[in-house]
């Protein structure tokens, strides 16, 4: 266990270092730089000053080395776009993305797996067929489409706010009204992100469940007189859930990819939007910090996925 975590920590460190360094160098080597934001008629001195402030007057390698030295002291540089240190900026966006991601994943897991058990354990019937049909439609509706459709419905009916994380009316709200406001804005993007993933979980769980109920050990349990509910939940399910734990790590990547577009469509102030703006403006240090945060989410997610797999599958634990 200790060695596993140590290896994971090492992997996370390498992933973060590679992702942020390559993001920094890519943004630096891209045509055009930050000073384009100053406009075409900016005085020469101001352009030179800005270039010096963001170390653009050094060679890319020298700039990278300087950034590594500073980052080791937890100084990640300034953002030109927001004129602030990138640390708190990215931390705020990361919290928003994490909130969206965790709520969506929890919803997708709960709904997807319980519906999958339901449809997998029954071969026919009106309700299972209905669930299967809805799930097939949802799996064909990636987050880009779900979020657009939900925003359209919200704009048309006004049931939920169509975008953003807080209403613009509450400028200086108390803590409790802020929480209520966020909770009011959360369901739309969270559902848009969760539905396709829930449908994927449902399909996978349904498949493995329908295979599991035909295993000899289930038949043996039937012969011993085990009740139906216990048969499915205690005997068949623990076996059938393993393949899902195996794709859980990959689901984190899908969640991050999906949250980018959901954040964009629903104006959720998360990491995706920040990274896109930073990339387009060539805001080098902001790009690097966003990439580092995304990479750490990914490392954390795959580790959790592997731990889940170890819990569900004893053969993995022994390796």
């Amino acid at each position, binding site marked *: 266990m200790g060695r596993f975590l140590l290896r994971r920590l090492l992997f996370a460190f390498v992933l973060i270092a590679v992702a942020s360094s390559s*993001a920094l160098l*890519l*943004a630096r*080597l*891209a*045509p*055009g730089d930050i000073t384009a934001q100053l406009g075409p008629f900016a005085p020469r001195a101001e352009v030179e000053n800005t270039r010096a402030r963001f170390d653009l007057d050094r060679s890319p390698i020298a700039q990278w080395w300087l950034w590594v030295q500073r980052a080791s002291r937890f100084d990640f540089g300034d953002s030109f776009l927001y004129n602030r240190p990138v640390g708190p900026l990215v931390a705020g966006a990361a919290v928003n993305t994490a909130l969206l991601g965790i709520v969506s994943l929890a919803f997708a897991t709960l709904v997807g797996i319980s519906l999958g058990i339901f449809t997998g354990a029954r071969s026919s019937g009106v309700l299972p067929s209905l669930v299967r049909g809805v799930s*097939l*439609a949802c*799996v*064909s*509706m*990636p*987050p*880009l*489409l779900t979020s*657009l*459709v939900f*925003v*359209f419905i919200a*704009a*048309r009916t006004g049931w939920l706010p*169509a*975008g953003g994380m807080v209403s613009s009316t509450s400028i200086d709200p108390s803590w409790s009204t802020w929480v209520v406001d966020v909770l009011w804005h959360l369901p739309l993007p969270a559902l848009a992100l969760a539905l*396709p*993933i829930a449908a*994927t979980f449902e*399909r*996978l769980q349904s*498949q493995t469940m329908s295979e599991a109920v035909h295993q000899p050990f289930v038949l043996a349990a039937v012969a011993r007189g085990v009740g139906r509910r216990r048969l499915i939940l205690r005997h068949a399910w623990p076996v059938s859930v393993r393949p899902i734990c195996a*794709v859980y*790590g*990959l*689901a984190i*990547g*899908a969640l*991050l*990819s*999906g949250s*980018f*577009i959901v954040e*964009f*469509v629903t104006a959720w102030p998360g990491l*995706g939007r920040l*990274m*896109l703006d930073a*990339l*387009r403006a060539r805001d080098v240090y902001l*790009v690097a910090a966003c*990439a580092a945060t*995304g990479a750490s989410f*990914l490392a954390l997610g*795959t580790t959790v996925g592997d731990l889940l797999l170890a819990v569900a599958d004893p053969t993995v634990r022994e390796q």
Partner: protein
Amino acid sequence: MKFAGWALLLTVAVAALLAPWLAPNSPNRRFDDLLYAPPTRIHFFQDGLRAPFVHTLRVASRRERRFEVVESTRITLRWFTDGALVTARPDEGAPLLLLGADGYGRDIWSRLLHGARTTLALSLAATLLATLLGTAVGGIAGYAGGWLDAILSRVSEFVLVLPAIYVALALRAVLPLVLPAPTVFLLLLVIFALLGWPIVARGVRAIVLAERERDYAVAAHAVGASDLRVLTRHLLPASRGYLRTQATLLLPAFILAEATLSYVGLGFPDTTPTWGTMLQDASNVALLGDAPWTLAPAAAIFAVVLGVNLLAQGTGRAPVQLEP
């Protein structure tokens, strides 16, 4: 199920192939008086049954985007003229807008048909390229083994865990933001192929690794077949079924990737109709509620992805689709 999938995909393919003929208007023609105009209604009755005709639309309020139907006008649809299946009279301000108009007053139905060509050509080409690349890498890794296998496998595992959209975004965003359409096509093709190959490679490697030990492969070796021949003529055909399944995963993913990148403004320029660039019109929440027809490309994407999923459904074990 499988039949429905084929029917959906064939319809879309035929529509894309015949786009110039099926489209009533030129995809980039702007009808300046008809911004966000609703779909044109086709009528059959006015004082008795008549050949299908439309009424002209008049702007009632430009600011509220309200239109009035001028009931006194009657424009009979013209069939098989001007190289199109059916049109109205676009030159006299009465175009046939089957799915309404977008923010520049362009015909959404015509753009949808033309956009299908670019979007589908790109995704199909990217699927082909990624599959070829993945098969080559996976085949070599599985057949050669040793350090080569180790390196190739680590690389593909690394690419596999990355969130694809972010990588595509980063790779695209660091190039000049405005590029001509053919350059964008090639660029996205390469980016998509680079992101898609590892999924294919991993499976092909496992298949080649297992098949290599089978008697028929050993026999081929024994009669003096070269490594290349054994790999390409004997081992890789075993992965055919697997490749077909993977292609059904990659195609929707690439359609979505194009749509996503174009939607956020990093894909094709607006003058090139693709399903992604068309969706930009739906990005204005205030207008979206009043002009649901701007969501037409979303419906088209849904139809194709559903068609592919229905096909995959028919071939036994449904594949797991995670990346958007």
